[in-house]
Every structure is written in structure tokens, then in C-alpha cells.
């Protein structure tokens, strides 16, 4: 009993108090800041090396819906044209806005990355339950989504939770590039959630196929048929990115 009290005492209070303003280690590779003016003519080292084919040239841009945040482009560029900063909030309601171009600052990106809708706030602003569907990724995204509910991040305090049954859910969070073998189950789960419902694609794999995009074993028809309401980049997305992106989407301001 004494040990138990001692343990509780040592454990202390572990939750991050202010989730929207929490900062990450300077090492974290979050938002890419691009300055094309530093590029040398015809250099294409970054796009050659990118494992996710996320970089386009002329004009230089990085698609953070494909990016695995490996940092290799920053390392290989000798001119400082690409720099990943530790700002992690990269969710967007619009797939196109995930393509980051030269001189786009993080603040500018954030200004209209997430378009709020009145009815979303009205329906889900105070309680939002998700059915998570894991479909052929590497389990990295799943571990970070699970971490959202642990003592450190405690997403439940905002009324947001993952639930077991799609019947109890208000939406689906998809991770992984969706294998042929998981495509039917994903569609079943989606169809089992009652209207109105929202769909979130979390992680590079779900958003674009990620590192597995070229595989013959995928079936991404779901994304042709169903509109995604919120994209949350990362490989995997940090729990703070997930929680804050969802909060920005469902909250009034």
C-alpha cells in the first residue's frame, strides 16, 4: 500500500495542460519552409532523393500529404532551400493545400488550412467518437492515434474518443494505404456509421499511399468514392497534430 502511494506520488501529473499551445522538441521535423530563391539552376537533388516522390520542381514544392518527414531533402540540399521546423499542426480540410510552395510561412498555411463549418461544430463540437480503421500501414500511425488517449495527451478531455463499434461512432479515421484485402472491411465500417459522419485520413499512407504508393497490392477506390473531411499529414502524425487538427476542425474558433 505504501509503495502504491509512493508510486502515485512519483508519477505525479503527466498530462499536457495546454494542448493547443504545446511545443515539440526542436528536433521534430514538422512543417517544411521552402525558399526557392536559394536553389541553384537545374539542381534537382532533393526531388531525386525523395523516397515519397513528394517534391515537384519549378516551382519547388513539397506535398506533405506524401512526405514521410524523413528530412533527407533538407540534408542533401547544400543551399538551405528546404528546412523542416518543429511546427507540427499540419491538418487541412483541403488536399490541395498540403502542397507547400516556396515562401509559404507556417502561419500563412495555418490561416486557411482548415475550413470550419458551422454544422460540424454544432454536431460534433462537444462530443466526437471515431471508429478507427487500420488498413495496411506499418502500425506507426495506429500507435500515435492510440497515444492520443493516454495519460499524456488525454484526448478524452475534449470529448473525443475512439470507440469499438462503428454504430457508436460519428466518423471514421483511416490509417494505412488500404490493401486489397482491407478495402471491403473499410467500406463496411464506413457504411455502418450513421449519417451525418466525417472521415479523416491520418498519415501519409492514408492520404496518398505514402511509402507504399506504388504497390500493386493496394485498392484505393474508397478515396475516389468518399469525400475526406480532414487530412492529417505525418509518418506518423504526432498525437498533438492529430488532436489539434481535429479540435481546429470542430471548434468554433
Amino acid at each position, binding site marked *: 500500500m505504501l509503495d502504491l502511494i509512493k508510486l502515485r506520488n*512519483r508519477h505525479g501529473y503527466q498530462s499536457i495542460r495546454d494542448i493547443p499551445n504545446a511545443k515539440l*522538441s526542436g528536433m521534430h521535423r514538422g512543417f517544411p519552409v521552402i525558399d526557392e530563391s536559394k536553389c541553384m539552376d537545374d539542381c534537382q537533388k532533393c526531388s531525386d532523393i525523395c523516397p515519397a516522390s513528394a517534391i515537384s520542381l519549378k516551382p519547388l514544392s513539397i506535398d506533405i500529404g506524401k512526405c514521410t518527414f524523413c528530412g533527407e531533402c533538407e540534408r542533401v540540399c547544400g543551399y538551405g532551400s528546404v528546412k523542416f521546423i518543429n511546427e507540427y499542426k499540419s491538418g487541412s480540410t483541403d488536399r490541395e493545400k498540403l502542397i507547400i510552395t516556396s515562401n509559404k510561412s507556417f502561419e500563412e498555411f495555418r490561416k486557411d488550412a482548415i475550413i470550419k463549418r458551422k454544422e460540424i461544430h454544432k454536431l460534433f463540437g462537444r462530443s466526437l467518437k471515431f471508429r478507427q480503421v487500420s488498413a495496411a500501414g506499418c*502500425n506507426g500511425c495506429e500507435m500515435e492515434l492510440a497515444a492520443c488517449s493516454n495519460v499524456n495527451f488525454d484526448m478524452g478531455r475534449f470529448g473525443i474518443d475512439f470507440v469499438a463499434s462503428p454504430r457508436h461512432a460519428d466518423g471514421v479515421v483511416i490509417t494505412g494505404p488500404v490493401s486489397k484485402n482491407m478495402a471491403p472491411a473499410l467500406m463496411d465500417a464506413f457504411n455502418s456509421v450513421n449519417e451525418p459522419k466525417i472521415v479523416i485520413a491520418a498519415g501519409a499512407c492514408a492520404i496518398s499511399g505514402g511509402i507504399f504508393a506504388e504497390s500493386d497490392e493496394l485498392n484505393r477506390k474508397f478515396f475516389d468514392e468518399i469525400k475526406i473531411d480532414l487530412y492529417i499529414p505525418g509518418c506518423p502524425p504526432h498525437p498533438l497534430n492529430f488532436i489539434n487538427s481535429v479540435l481546429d476542425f470542430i471548434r468554433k474558433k
Partner: protein
Amino acid sequence: MNWTETKNLKSVSLEDIPQLHMNELRTQIIDGIKNGRRLVQFFGDKKDGRLILYAVLADDLTSRLFIASSKFGNEKEYQSITPEIPAAHLFEREFYEQFGIEPKGHPWLKPVRKGIAGISSEEIPYNFFNMTGEEMHEVGVGPIHAGVIEPGHFRFSCHGEKVYYLEIEHGFQHRGIEDLFVKNYNKSLYLTKLSESVAGDTVIGHAGAFVRAMESLGNTAISRRAQLIRTIMLELERIAVHLGDLSALSGDVAYLTGNSVFGALRTKIINTTMAICGNRFGRGIMTIGGINYDISSKLESEIKSILNRLSDDADLAAEVLFSSASVLERFEQTGVIEKETALEIGMVGPAARSSGISLDIRSDHPFDAYQYFTVHKLTLESGDVFARAYMRFIEIQHSIRIILEQLANLQDGELKCPANSLQPDGMVVSLAEGWRGEIAHVIITNSSGNIKRVKIKDPSFHNWFALALAVREEGVSDFPLCNKSFNLSYCGTDL
């Protein structure tokens, strides 16, 4: 037995690997295993249009590996090894699925990754084992599970609460990883990133096995400093997952203090990993020829103080967890795997060590910095959930000690040495002790020195069957607990 003798990470020339008649290969595999060797790999590859089956056996006591092969002509079948060596069952099924050669007499010739879920009319539907009898019933779970975890299908045949039989259907996470390796053979950076995503909870384990295999085939040197830092990263990965699993095991028996405390400790470790390389799971640090991120002396002292404090915290938390009667009541004598069974089915990793098998690749087939010091192999005997949980705790403390010692040994050295081109017509077997157990990557090159085959084995490949056996005769409600005590990888198995 004239098999090619080699060792972990020592590449061999393909032409030196003996080709035996399949009957002979089969007999020699069976003899080898009956004499204490272990089946590490068993897979096919096409060379000049002909199919070749490779088998790799390990002699763990003498740190040797043995490789032999057999060439197939028009034969469409061979005599199955599984009836004599159950540990071969999944390897043979995989070989059949990938190349269509039937192991005759295989007692359980079911799909591994394809032909599941009835997704295509050309595929034969998965045929579940069926128990009949009055009051027999089935419980089906998945592919989508209750929690935020990977997909897979479990089917329990029960009588009342009691499980008689569990069948596990895999393949839902199949995303064609081995093919992606070969298709992108000329993009070594992509391949390194891909190896990080074989199993996202074993980033360092799998990426490490891959880059070392590439270094061996390219005869690429790496500095002592890089080896030490890789070793530290691998041990951090082990500590993090073990803490996470102790948290989850506590949660499964509704022991909330353990759930919170171990969970928070895990966060401290993965945040340390992030402080080193910018990613909580160690993504980005591994590269062919060394590492991408260094540990500065400031970071070094931070890591030391975090680990020292964590060691005390974990001691206290374990003391409380493992002395709670209600926890022990659930953990002890639940999901027992006897040593004999464990040996027979070829179990690996901490789960095997919890059943009394003394096998640890860090000590038996050392790699990276494990070549320079001794890793003591720790075993427990009871083979139950308790042993698998307690093993996690012992290994956490052991890994903390390893890291603290190795931090003191850090000496100056290149972070990354230039990578050379690969040896043509070569093969390398790269073994590593991930937190789940033995990881085995095999890479084969063609005559131009390009990658032509990558075979990956996650330890889960061996251990899933152990889970199926562990729940027999237990209540359905003990399944989550048994499952978590192994915490096996779906994506690592499905590839």
C-alpha cells in the same frame, strides 16, 4: 552435410551454395533441426527462369549459419517437412503461396496473405477449421478490432466460455513490401525508408537488419561510434515497447495505476528517441554506412539522467504491479506455453525466453556493438502471461544498463561512411534481436550487383502460432491478455 557455412552478416557467393535434390534437402533440414539447429529462413527465388528454394539453418551455440538450396524443374510438389518439423508450417505455406509448389502432406495448407476475405472470385475462399457438437459455438473477431490496432481475423471455437481452438487468419495488412524492395532496387534511400515501415513498432530493428545486410554485401565499413549509437537506439526501442506492453497488460486486467504509470514512462523513452533523431519511433537515424544523427555530450548526460530515474520508477511500478494479488490471479498460469512446445514450433524472442529457451540473437549471432560485449541471456520457466510480462520488466532494466554502459564507451568516429556497390551474385543473411525476437532479412543480388530478392521475416512469423496454442483451454475473456503478452505484429507478418 555439405551446406555452405557462414555467419550472421557474412555474405556468400551464390555459386558456393550447394544445390541438393529436394528429398535430400528435406532430410537434411529435418536431421539438422532434430540435432538442435533452428530454421531461420526457407524461401524461393527465380534464377534464370528456374525456381530455387533456399534454406537457412542456425547453430546458435556456435554462432554459425548454414545455407543450402534445391532447384525445381517441372516438379509441382515435394514431400512436406511440417509433419516432422512443425516450425516449418508457415514457411512452407508461404513458399506454396508465392511459387505454387505444393508441400505434399502439409497438414494445414492455408493461405498466408492472399485469398482471404473472399475479395476476388478467382481466389479460393479461406477455409476455417470447424468444430461441431451440441453447444459448440464460434466467436469471430476482426479484421477490424475493438481498439486502435492492426487488422486480422481471429476465430474461436468455444464451448461456453472455454476456447478449444483458435484460428488466426492473416493477410489484411499485405502491401507487397518484398516486391517493392525489388522494384526499387536502385533507390537505396527509398529502400532504407521502406525497411523502417516493415513494422512501425520495430523501426530500428528492421531498418538495422536491412542496412547491415546492405553494408555486408557492399563491404561497407562503419565506425564504432555509429555501431554503438545504433545499439543504443535498438535498446531504447526495446525499453519503449516493453513499457508500453506492461501498460497495456495492466489495462487488460483493469489495473489502472500500472496502465497510467507504465504508459507515461514509455512516453519519456520515445520522447528521448525523438530528441536524438526527430522522430518518436527512431525513423530517420538508420542509413547505409552509419547513422544520420549523433548523440551530443549534452544529450548524453540528459539520456543518462532520464534512464537513471526511469530505472527507479520502473522498479517501483513493477514492485507494485507484480505484488498485486488481483493482477497475479490473472497473469499466473494463464496462456502457458511449455518449453517443449516452444521449441517444436520454433518460438523466438522474449516469449521463447519466458518458456525457458535460451535464445537471444544479440548474444548468439552478435551484430553492431553486441560484438564487443556480452549480453546475458535471461530466461524464465513458467511460460505463462506472468513470465512474458515479468520478462519485459527484466529486459527493461537490462537494456537500461546496456545503454548506460555503452554511453560511457562512446568514442569519436565518422557518423557515416560512404556506401560501396554490392557484390554480384551474392547472398547475405542479416539477423537481429528486435524487441519481439529474431528478425531475419536475406538479400540476394544478381550478376550486375543489383538487388533481385529480399526476404523478410519478422519474429511474429514464428510466434503467432504460439498465441493460438496459448489460448486453448482458456476462457475467451483471457484472449486479450494472452494476445498482449505476445504483442505480435500483423504488418510484419503480412508484409
